[in-house]
């Protein structure tokens, strides 16, 4: 075990608290506590372990410096979301008096305690990483953060000018009359708490003011320097000149703090028709919701801290005193600093898939064959090209697409608008409930409607999570439908950072299923039976259970049983129980679960045939791929769904069988590669800890993401060489028949 793993295990000491006992139903099903073997791991603690794995990447000396900073920033933003959503939710439960047991046997209050304990460790590690490792290394590399006390006179003067011209005009100190009248501050912003001396010397009452730091100001103020990047944190600049805000008043203390608010507002869409209006309501309501975390710089005096906690009603366990800058998520901007290439990963640029030439019509390609792409190793460009060509193709009748977390300047959005202005029937289902992208979502939707796109705002009660695009085209031998099924969003930015699978086909049954699915979610039709796919919330769970069970039955009859699954989260108790049963019957089960995993592997008489690995590497593992041995005639699927109750029961998700031989083989190879990883994979232990996978003997570690990247590049180069060496007959432009 190397140094990093040692770190991981030192932090893993608290994990056994995640043990519990058998739960019933979904993750929310309460169970009676009591002495029993724990069949499930607690999902919150499992999630924290995932974040700890991300932090390991930030601590890994083998990772380039600015990538380490990026991973650190990710752990920060991950924790922010975790507190808003999960801790917020638990907190709400508790406030409603629901202190019930989770499937792991922990009560709500116990979970909050354990979360707090584990998070405090994590936060300590985060700052240890930043202050003792990254800061030191970055300084050596030429990126240096200066404290106010370290400034030379020229720098001081420069900052004074910056403060006067850019900062002072946009900040507003708010005087606080009493703790009871604390101003309503938005969550996640950095604020300064200022303590002023009492008016009269005789008075013991301190006076306080808050300066909220506007988010649009740059957090990192760059100082002029040659060949180096020297910066000062915005809050330090304001602190330095804070006395200007209170002329003639002695400032006793000026300390940054940050609070996190509960975001889990239930959208009551069945009671109000205008979903869009409602979402805006949510954005406002979020500001008013309860505080679930308070982060304060640990220089704060006990006087000021007592005041702050009283004002914000923050319990001890929700308080985080940190020894360094707040809001680590903001450091992702620093990680993207131009230059400093030595501190960054070499580019693994997305490669053109070998079976598609750059000049090909996607319609021709897909008429010839199905295409399976593994992003970001394979470029997302063919998917974009398909939509763009559809927009301009005179024979395309209609385009139907589900958009979820897309970007405003997306070429896909532009193509859809263009298609609509050209008279094609364009229907877009927009999911506004993508949690933190609501504001962004609303903006680009506004651009689609005037173009004549028929925009449908999600489904009442169910969140549409499936990714699908259908193009209906009239061809010589009749209507043909081109379908793209994906595990990721139609977002060119995340397509470069997440690993996702795209499956493109013009096969008739997929086209029929895709349109049926679409008609169902637009409410144009009740659910009718599918030919190939299966969809949540109606049939997906049952189909999964059936697939797992059939492996079990084969095993019981002496056949080989083998399941491989690559998913992001495994929480669903019913699925986990089915996997336990299958394991017990002898089915070999290999799971690659990036994030939360409530299944406890390798426990005798429960899960001895199950292994769980997790890969945390440069790209966020996001594809969902399933493999069932099926007596040798393997069934392979891609899916938008994680194995969580919310995905299987409350979301619209798809399970798509991939039957095309080449595509299927590519997925199987891909799964095998993930399980072979010995560089970035961790093995989940029966006690909930994760241990790094080791290469067998003295062999070199196998890094699956690097291998995928190399393969894609080699295939692209080979294809390029082949093309240069052959003279291809010129095809007529429109040879789809």
């Amino acid at each position, binding site marked *: 075990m190397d140094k990093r793993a040692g770190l991981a295990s030192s932090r893993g000491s608290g994990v056994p608290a995640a043990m519990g006992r058998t739960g019933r139903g979904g993750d929310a099903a309460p169970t009676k506590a009591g002495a029993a073997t724990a069949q499930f791991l607690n999902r919150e603690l499992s999630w924290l372990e995932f974040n700890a794995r991300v932090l390991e990447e930030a601590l890994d000396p083998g990772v380039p410096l600015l990538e380490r900073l990026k991973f650190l920033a990710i752990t920060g933003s991950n924790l922010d979301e975790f507190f808003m959503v999960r801790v917020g939710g638990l907190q709400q439960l508790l406030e409603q008096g629901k202190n019930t047991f989770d499937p792991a046997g922990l009560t709500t209050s116990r979970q909050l305690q354990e979360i707090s304990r584990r998070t405090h460790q994590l936060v300590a590690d985060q700052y240890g990483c930043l202050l003792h490792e990254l800061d030191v290394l970055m300084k050596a590399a030429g990126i240096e953060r200066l404290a106010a006390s370290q400034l030379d006179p020229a720098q001081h003067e420069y900052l004074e000018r910056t403060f006067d011209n850019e900062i002072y005009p946009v900040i507003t100190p708010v005087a606080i009359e009493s703790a009871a009248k604390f101003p309503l501050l938005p969550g996640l912003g950095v604020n300064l708490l200022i303590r002023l001396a009492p008016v009269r010397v005789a008075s013991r009452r301190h006076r306080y003011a808050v300066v909220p730091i506007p988010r649009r100001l740059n957090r990192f103020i760059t100082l002029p320097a040659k060949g180096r990047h020297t910066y000062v944190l915005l809050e330090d600049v304001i602190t330095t000149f804070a006395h200007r805000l209170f002329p003639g008043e002695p400032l006793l203390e000026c300390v940054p703090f940050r609070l996190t608010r509960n975001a889990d507002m239930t959208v009551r869409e069945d009671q109000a028709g205008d979903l869009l209006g409602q979402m805006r309501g949510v954005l406002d309501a979020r500001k008013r919701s309860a505080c679930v975390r308070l982060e304060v710089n640990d220089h704060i005096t006990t006087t000021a801290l007592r005041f702050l906690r009283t004002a914000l009603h923050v319990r001890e366990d929700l308080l985080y005193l940190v020894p360094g800058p707040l809001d680590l998520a903001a450091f992702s901007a620093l990680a993207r600093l131009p230059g400093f290439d030595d501190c960054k990963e070499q580019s693994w640029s997305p490669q053109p898939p070998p079976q598609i030439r750059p000049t090909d019509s996607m319609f021709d390609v897909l008429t010839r064959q199905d295409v399976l792409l593994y992003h970001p190793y394979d470029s997302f460009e063919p998917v974009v090209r398909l939509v763009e060509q559809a927009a301009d193709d*005179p*024979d395309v*009748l*209609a385009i139907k697409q589900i958009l979820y977390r897309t970007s405003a300047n997306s070429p896909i959005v532009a193509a859809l608008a263009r298609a609509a202005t050209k008279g094609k*029937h364009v229907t877009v289902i927009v999911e506004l409930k993508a949690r933190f992208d609501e504001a962004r979502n609303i903006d680009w939707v506004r651009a689609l409607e005037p173009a004549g796109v*028929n925009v449908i705002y999600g489904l009442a009660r169910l969140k549409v999570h499936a990714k699908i695009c259908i193009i*209906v085209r*009239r061809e*010589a*031998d*009749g*209507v043909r439908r081109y379908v793209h099924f994906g595990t990721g969003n139609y977002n060119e930015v995340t397509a470069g950072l997440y690993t996702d699978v795209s499956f493109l086909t013009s096969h008739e049954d997929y086209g*029929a299923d895709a*349109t*049926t699915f679409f*008609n169902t979610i*637009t*409410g*144009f*039709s*009740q*659910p*009718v039976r599918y030919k190939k796919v299966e969809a949540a919330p*109606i*049939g997906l769970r*049952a189909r999964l259970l059936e697939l797992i069970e059939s492996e079990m039955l084969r095993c019981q009859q002496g056949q080989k049983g083998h399941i491989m699954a690559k998913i992001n989260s495994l929480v669903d108790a019913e699925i986990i129980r089915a996997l336990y049963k299958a394991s017990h019957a002898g089915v070999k089960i290999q799971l690659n679960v990036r994030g939360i995993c409530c299944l406890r592997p390798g426990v005798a008489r429960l899960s001895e045939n199950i292994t769980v690995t997790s890969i945390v590497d440069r790209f966020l593992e996001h594809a969902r791929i399933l493999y069932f041995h099926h007596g040798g005639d393997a069934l392979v699927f891609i899916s938008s769904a994680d194995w969580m109750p919310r995905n299987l029961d409350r979301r619209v998700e798809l399970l798509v069988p991939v039957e095309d031989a080449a595509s299927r083989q590519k997925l199987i190879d891909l799964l095998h590669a993930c399980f072979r990883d010995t560089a970035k994979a961790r093995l989940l232990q029966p006690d909930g800890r994760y241990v790094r996978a080791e290469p067998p003997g003295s062999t070199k570690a196998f890094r699956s993401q690097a291998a995928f990247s190399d393969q894609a590049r080699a295939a692209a180069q080979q294809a390029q060489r082949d093309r240069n060496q052959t003279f291809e007959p010129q095809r007529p432009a*429109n040879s789809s*028949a």
Partner: protein
Amino acid sequence: MTEPRPDCRPVAVIDIGASAIRLRIAEIGADGVVRSLESLQQAVPLGKDTFTTGRIQNATIEQCVKALRDFRRIMTEYGVTREDQIRAVATSALREAENRTAVVDRLYMSTQINVEVIEGAEENRLTYIAVQEVLEQEGKRKVKDAIIVEVGGGSTELLLLQEGRITFAHSYRLGGLRMRESLETYRAPADRVRSILEQHIKRTVDQVHRITPVDRVPHLIAVSGDAQFAASLLASDWADVRVSRLESAAFTALAEKLVPLPVDDLVREYRIPYQEAETIGPGLLAYAHLARAFQVKELIVPKCSLRDGLLREMAARGAWTQEYTDQILHSALALGRKYEIDEKHAGHVAALSVQLFRELRPEHQLDQRFELLLQMAALLHEVGNFISDRSHHKHSMYIIQNSELFGLTRRDILLISLVARYHRRALPRPYHTEFQTVDRDSRIAVLKLAAILRVADALERNHLQLVRDLSFAREKNQLVMTVHGVNDLTLERLALKEKGNMFEEVYGLKPVLRAARTSREVSSGG
């Protein structure tokens, strides 16, 4: 740039049933092969309204409007916009609603979709077309003797297939939803549901069994969503086949198991829509009882529906296949036998009528459908004799009007009855109400066909089928019919004088009979 599009017609059919509106979008290839593109359905409680209050409620009408508007949008995406690309039909729930005309008009106003309320017989015909297509693919195992039964939401259509021929067709007011509604209306307690249903079904099944010309058949072809649901549970290969064969015993056992289950349980257990769950119990029980009554060994469930029939008919562009025409003629013959007609005479008049119809195509300009209607009228023109020889043409009219002839719409049957009515005696008069109820095109067609029938009947005046070999020539204002092989045509000439006036009025040609001098001179006409 764009290559010329071959003949691939996108079309849409809509079926407005008792509990749902269903749309199928399909493409008909140049070869007439139908390829389905999309299937949609929306739940609409038409049956609930009609079977409890007798009329469709406004809220339900609005639901229909919404569904059809949604469908219209999808249809537009496939370029289905013209009226000749769309066929929308409504069955029992709308048929029996007091306000059906208002509903149909409202739907047309809001959606420009012209909904045709079809009769049970038409439903039967369309179902048969669909079933036939599926069964044809069965090849050697083709079923020749069976009852084809569709237990729908509001009505049950039954066809008897003997030796591959349809010999009997009937529509009954027995329906899954209708039963469910009456149970609810009378607030039947849960434990009595089963026995009430059984009694109700048994009554109807007994009646069906009594009037169907056979006591037992080897097969029951069950056509409905309920039956397909049963097949999906009983046949492991259901997903991959077009037809499933189920043993009666297994089917009955399943029906017995499902009948007592509450609708909510069915929905949860089998993941089906509510409106489907409501009819499954009563629907399957009805099949089970029919199977028992007819001592059926095997139930055959084809994967097809009314919509397949509609599509197949659109693919044929209204032209009927020979097989299908034969089925229709056979049902006329079966009716004729029931009324003890002179089969040889009727058949001969029909043959002569066809000969004349084809000869006169330039004059009447009627399509092939009318040839069939004329044939039917010729076969049935004397059924009225069963009642009385006096005014038998009028008796023929109302017997035909009140019979179920497989494969024909009410309108077709009305036309046939009118042609038969005018095969003798008075020409149409303003006070002949039946004649006045049909539209102008139909009236003209009746005149054209009746005129031919009269001439054909005159040629077969002596009921001896002597006039067989005919050739035709047009001379001035005459249609000269040269008869070969018959020397004495006195009787026929007399009859023609008596009955030929209508022909002259309609076609502007005086029919003239001539005996051929030698055995054969000219041959024409065909």
